[in-house]
């Protein structure tokens, strides 16, 4: 019992965790102390005084540890003369508080009355109305009638843009500083601050660009009033009309738990539609945060250009067909292909879809053949090392701090997996030893204890040196993130092995808060690996395409121009594409199948931490599109007469029976929820209301081999030969930007279009000089036979003879998928003569 202490609340003795503050401790035992400025994810500041309580200390007998009793036989308590703020008080053994006395109630009433002296109380037109802590607490503590002069209310800006994503209503702000503290403490980007003081206090930003971070939307959730609203949702719906449907963000491997707020929408013809995406609490995954890509990236599901009918190529053109026609044709082609069938799946194909697609391919082959199941993109590999020594079951970045060493190699987490960035950054703030190993500066460097600059190609050598570092060798825990920047598929596989070797040789495998994470490209890339898909297969399928190639959510043409000819050569070949939109790839297909978006159906995806998680049907599906699993199951039925499964749950059940790692991970198991702390999703009047509560399940991490006691011994791969560049040659290194021009993302988040940078290339200052280029110049980059125009950025910290190019910004001429040698030349501006 050393971890708990005794806290007496209104005369009742409770056991609460040692070190908790009073607000949290009371909440744990069911007592709601109202707050405005306090938030369990932020350090307490004691600014608003809403949490006042009577505070005392019970006398404790030194020898027995029992309470000293008064003459009524109750613990004898010495009360402090003044009220104290609960949020800034840490519980100690024998602490006593009173929360219901007239003195306390009066103090709370007064604080609310003060806050309302100049509050507009425009709840009827306020987006927060219905889920607003101030509104709730006003109902409980408010004066009913104001004693202040209406004419003296302040009138301030009601629609002040803090950037183009978030609007501030200056009249509604109650100056709790939650937004500024979120930016400063949690994100590490202090672009919001108070200006002036007293009654004139206001939130400002004078940063350039203004409030424009990847996490800005979260401030609108934690703002306890309607002062901060998103440009995406403001005036979009009233909170009480909304139903929260549990879902999973489809945009990156973090697998943030989200809640899709839906309602029956008149503008959408009375259909149930998603009005906004909110974080859903999962303390092991995303806590209560999501990035702006996840929050604003949901519009594709209702986009006017969605495909709603299958298309079949006839006379060189894609013409609408019925599902029966399309599927019969596919079945026929597969049967005729004599086993020459392969499939490539993109990043957001659910486990159920992948499984049924695998059945299609395996049936065609007459048995198992993993060589024909590919993932896209295919530059990352080495998933077998995750299966052996992946991040251990039960690990949680939220609990990492002192004693844990986190290594990030060849990855810019802030762009590739924002919430991992946020959680790693905060673990570092709590004392975790962060080591970044990159060839160029990344956001995370700011919080790293050691930034080891490596060269592209020098990754293995750098990993090797890690094994000797005391911060790794002697650390209690070690986690390694392995990205793919500067690497091709084989290089990434080797690096994964190297990381596995560091973990096993230093004894950091198979223990909670230890292990390996591949920074995959897609939300369900891990699931694809688990179900037998691989990057190696993709490579061979693209090198020698099979007679029938099925592409599910894999826009291989938009991402690599070379693939146009691969698909355009139709002699004896047949390409099936399952997509939501007529992508560049779909345009080359022989049959296009309209697929459903993640909000129109249910399923499971597996995050980069191997957590298998459920998403649920949120929105009335469009007429026409179907979930992939159903479509592939139907193809199988047509070909083999097999009995198709009736639900995604049934498909998952089969997966749990056939895939050892997924044993027992039925929908029921994945849907389970335990009580989480902080307790922010409930019906208390001060955190509640926003869609934090998790009712859809916390998901389950499947155990690695090391978790099951089989820690392999992994050898460190040999240091490869460094790439030799001739003078004048450049190594073109593709990097990742969170907001890119991928058609799927463009359709999903119109609000973010203006945040997508123009195609750019980053050069070292020396190289720029030799090439006669300066910041802002236009230059032509050529690599692998593709040329494209880019704006030059000069950065002294970029390695020499290297050109960094963000992928998927230049749609006209796709950037290479893996590093390759290329060259660059200036676009001469021809002076125009008048």
């Amino acid at each position, binding site marked *: 019992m050393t971890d708990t202490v005794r806290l007496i609340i209104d005369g009742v003795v409770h056991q609460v965790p040692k070190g908790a503050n009073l607000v949290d401790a009371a909440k744990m035992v069911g007592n709601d102390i109202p707050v405005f400025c306090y938030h369990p994810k932020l350090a307490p500041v004691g600014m608003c005084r809403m949490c006042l309580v009577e505070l005392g200390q019970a006398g404790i007998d030194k020898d027995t540890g029992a309470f000293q009793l008064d003459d009524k036989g109750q613990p004898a308590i010495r009360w402090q003369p003044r009220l104290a703020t609960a949020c800034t008080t840490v519980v100690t053994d024998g602490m006593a508080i009173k929360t219901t006395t007239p003195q306390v109630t009066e103090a709370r009433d007064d604080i609310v009355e003060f806050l309302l002296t100049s509050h507009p109380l425009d709840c009827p037109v306020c987006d927060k109305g219905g889920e607003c802590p101030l509104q709730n607490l006003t109902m409980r503590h408010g004066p009913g009638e104001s004693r202040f002069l209406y004419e003296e209310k302040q009138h301030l800006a009601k629609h002040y843009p803090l950037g183009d994503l978030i609007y501030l209503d200056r009249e509604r702000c109650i100056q709790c500083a939650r937004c500024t503290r979120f930016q400063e403490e949690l994100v590490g*980007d202090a672009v919001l601050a108070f*200006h002036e003081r007293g009654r004139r206090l206001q939130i400002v930003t*004078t*940063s*350039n660009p203004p409030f424009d971070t990847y996490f800005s939307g979260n401030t609108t959730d934690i703002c306890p009033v309607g002062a901060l609203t998103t440009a995406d949702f403001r005036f979009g719906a009233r909170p009480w009309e909304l139903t929260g449907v549990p879902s999973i963000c489809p945009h990156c491997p973090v697998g943030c738990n989200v809640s899709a707020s839906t309602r029956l929408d008149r503008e959408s013809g009375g259909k149930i539609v998603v009005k906004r995406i909110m974080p859903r609490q999962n303390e092991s995954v995303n806590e209560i945060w999501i990035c702006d890509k996840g929050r604003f990236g949901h519009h594709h599901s209702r986009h006017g250009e969605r495909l709603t009918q299958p298309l079949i190529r006839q006379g060189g053109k894609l013409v609408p067909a019925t599902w029966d026609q399309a599927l019969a044709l596919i079945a026929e082609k597969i049967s005729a292909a004599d086993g020459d069938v392969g499939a490539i799946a993109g990043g957001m194909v659910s486990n159920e879809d992948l499984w049924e697609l695998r059945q299609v391919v395996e049936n065609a082959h007459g048995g198992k053949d993993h060589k024909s199941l590919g993932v896209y993109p295919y530059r990352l590999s080495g998933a077998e090392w995750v299966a052996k020594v992946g991040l251990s079951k039960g690990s949680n970045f939220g609990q990492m701090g002192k004693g844990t060493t986190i290594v990030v190699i060849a990855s810019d987490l802030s762009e590739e997996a924002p919430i991992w960035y946020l959680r790693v950054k905060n673990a570092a703030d709590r004392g975790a030893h962060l080591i970044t190993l990159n060839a160029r500066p990344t956001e995370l460097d700011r919080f790293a204890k050691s930034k080891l600059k490596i060269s592209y190609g020098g990754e293995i050598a750098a990993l090797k040196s890690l094994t000797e570092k005391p911060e790794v060798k002697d650390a209690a825990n070690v986690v390694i993130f392995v990205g793919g920047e500067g690497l091709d598929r084989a290089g990434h596989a080797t690096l994964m092995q190297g990381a596995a070797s560091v973990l096993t040789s230093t004894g950091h495998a198979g223990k909670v808060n230890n292990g390996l994470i591949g920074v995959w490209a897609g939300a369900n890339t891990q699931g694809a690996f688990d179900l037998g898909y691989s990057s190696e297969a993709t490579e061979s399928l693209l090198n020698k395409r099979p007679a029938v190639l099925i592409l599910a959510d894999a826009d291989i043409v938009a991402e690599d121009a070379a693939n146009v000819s691969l698909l355009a050569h139709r002699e004896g070949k047949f390409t099936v594409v399952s997509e939501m939109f007529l992508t560049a790839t779909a345009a080359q297909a022989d049959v296009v199948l309209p697929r459903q978006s993640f909000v129109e159906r249910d399923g499971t995806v597996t995050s980069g931490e191997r957590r298998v998680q459920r998403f649920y049907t949120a929105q009335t599906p469009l007429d026409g599109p179907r979930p992939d699993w159903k479509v592939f199951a139907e193809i199988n039925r047509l070909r083999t007469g097999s009995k198709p499964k009736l639900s995604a749950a049934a498909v998952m059940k089969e997966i749990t029976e056939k895939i050892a790692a997924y044993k027992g991970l039925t929908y029921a198991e994945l849907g389970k929820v335990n009580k989480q702390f902080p307790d922010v999703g409930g019906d208390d009047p001060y955190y509640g209301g926003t869609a934090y509560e998790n009712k859809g399940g916390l998901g389950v991490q499947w155990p690695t081999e090391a978790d099951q006691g089989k820690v392999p011994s992994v050898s460190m791969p040999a240091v490869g030969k460094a790439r030799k560049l001739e003078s004048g040659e450049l190594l073109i290194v593709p990097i990742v930007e969170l907001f890119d021009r991928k058609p799927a993302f463009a359709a999903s988040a119109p609000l973010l279009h203006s945040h997508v940078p123009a195609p750019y290339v980053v050069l070292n200052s020396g190289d720029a000089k030799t090439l006669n280029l300066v910041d802002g110049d236009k230059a032509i980059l050529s690599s692998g036979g593709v040329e494209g125009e880019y704006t030059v950025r000069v950065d002294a910290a970029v390695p020499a003879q290297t050109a960094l190019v963000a992928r998927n910004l230049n749609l006209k001429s796709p950037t290479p998928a893996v590093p390759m040698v290329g060259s660059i030349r200036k676009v001469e501006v021809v002076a125009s003569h008048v």
Partner: protein
Amino acid sequence: MLAEKYQERIEKIFAKYPDKRSAIMPLLYVAQEAYGWISPEAINEVAALCQIDPTQVKSIAGFYTMFRETPKGKYWLQVCNDLPCALRGADQFYQELLDYLGIKDGETTADGVFTVEHVMCLAACDKAPMLQCNFHFHENLTMETMKALIEQWRAEAKAAQGK
């Protein structure tokens, strides 16, 4: 640019502190001296010097009433009307001063000579009504002594202009 014009002074300021952030306030004074007020450019320059986000600099400039965030008149009168001063008649004094100059709270006279605003406690509560003019205290004021000061300043401003 402050960095070039006041290089030596800036270096001396930085040398006094363990980290750059601590130098924000002294640098804001340098900027105020150079530009007459804390302009948006001044904010950006100080932020760049301290390697910190401009919003943080703006916040500090806004918190302290000694920094001028808008261009002010030649004589910048800051009258305290916080509670203790108000009890000694500062509110009424302030209003009379504004009326005398024919401007409203926070405004500058048409000739650009006076800016008048009210501020929080200046730590001279026992000598109210009081004000500070370009950081110099004037205490135990009455409208009579105030008027005399105003006329004196006005004359000085005129003389300076004539030069």
